[in-house]
């Protein structure tokens, strides 16, 4: 018998031991399997070079609490208002649309006999910073902060669409002109159709793209400076006395107009 025969006999004994039913053989098999698995994973990770880190998604929870008892204000002349969010839609995880109702549309000028009163958007303030638009008059380019420093970090992340009394009456802010066609509100707000007229309401649709790095996480504090073409005291008094929606609702014959 040579030394090779001794190796074979030892090997046969080892195989016979590992294949057995004893506690020892069972423990041995478990240890061998775990070791083999560990070596396999380590080899795989080394090959793929996978870093062992955890990723966290930052989400901003936006809560809206519009007051259903809030009476829509009436503006004569010029005023800065915060408005009330009357609708909000999330078109995707990173994009939201808000409908902000600003004020009522008033009646006709010249004691009710002239042209319709016309509203213009003078300024928009976002977190007390004055918004500046791109050339299209709708997409936000940046803002001037309180130190009059122009900041463009929110460029393209917001769009503001202003409407002068109905969904079919879009209007660019004061000082902007654009050849790009203006869309109706129901073509901008998701899930709106032509019946969503926002009748006799001056409002704005605000589109916001989520970006935590640039601190754009919601509508935040937004204010609109609107200007009504109805400024004469007589027109304003006549309007508030005769309008049935927000005024006294008096008939013409009950008012001395001479």
């Amino acid at each position: 018998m040579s030394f090779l025969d001794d190796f074979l006999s030892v090997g046969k004994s080892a195989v016979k031991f590992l294949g057995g039913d004893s506690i020892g053989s069972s423990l041995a098999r478990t240890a061998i399997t775990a070791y083999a698995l560990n070596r396999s994973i380590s080899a795989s990770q080394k090959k793929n070079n996978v870093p062992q880190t955890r990723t966290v998604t930052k989400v901003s929870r936006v809560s809206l609490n519009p007051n259903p008892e809030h009476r829509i204000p009436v503006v004569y002349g010029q005023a800065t208002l915060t408005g009330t969010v009357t609708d909000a839609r999330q078109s995707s995880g990173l994009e939201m649309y808000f409908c902000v109702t600003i004020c009522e549309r008033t009646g006709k000028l010249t004691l009710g006999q002239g042209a319709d009163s016309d509203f213009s958007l003078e300024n928009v303030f976002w977190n007390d910073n004055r918004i500046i638009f791109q050339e299209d008059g709708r997409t936000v380019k940046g803002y001037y902060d309180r130190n009059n420093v122009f900041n463009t970090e929110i460029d393209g992340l917001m769009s503001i669409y202003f409407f002068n009394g109905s969904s079919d009456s879009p209007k660019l802010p004061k000082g902007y002109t654009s050849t790009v066609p203006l869309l109706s509100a129901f073509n901008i707000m998701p899930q709106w159709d032509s019946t969503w007229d926002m009748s006799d309401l001056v409002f704005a649709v605000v589109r916001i793209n989520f970006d935590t790095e640039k601190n754009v996480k919601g509508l935040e504090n937004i204010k609109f400076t609107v200007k009504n073409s109805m400024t004469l005291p007589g027109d304003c008094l006549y309007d508030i006395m005769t309008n049935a929606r927000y005024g006294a609702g008096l008939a013409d014959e009950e008012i001395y107009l001479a």
Partner: protein
Amino acid sequence: MAIDLSTYKQIGSALTVIIEVDEYKSNSNENLSYTSQVLKFTDSLYPLTVDGQLYTALGGLMSVSSTRNELRSSGSSLTLAISGIPTSRMSEIINSKFKGSPVKIHRVVFNPQTYAVLDIAGNPAGRFFGIIDNYSVEESWDQANRTSSLTIAFECTSLQSMLENKLSGRKCNSDSHRAFYPNDPSLDRVTALAGANFDFGAKQ
């Protein structure tokens, strides 16, 4: 506006009343629908024609409570009573909807000989404008003639009092908006948004 009567040696004056009732039932038959009726009458002894409108003469059967004459306009109430109504008209009074009907009372100056209204500036002069707030019906029994008659008393509130208590303005809710624009759903979601949360930035 002051009326200049300096050129007239004698004049007569009377109160004229107009009540516009939108839902008036002239018959007790419940199958008949309501009609719009304008009631015009005066406390003059003879009928008066003012601005083409003929006012029925009630004389002493009509009475108007006193009101204060102030330099500054103020809200006041007034009671207008009409007596001597036959009891056969009871159902007509009960079935008609007088509450909320506009009331206009003027004082008219006329020629006492001809009962023609004087054509001068400011004639007739407005006395009271308001609406009927409430009314009551009282029956009077005449023992001697074994008959009864009705007296209806309208409690009227002036327009100024109404305006002082009026709250106007469209609210940010569906009911208020649809009261003016029934087919516009623009504010339907306001109530649903209250307390709603949006996970801005989450994958959808």
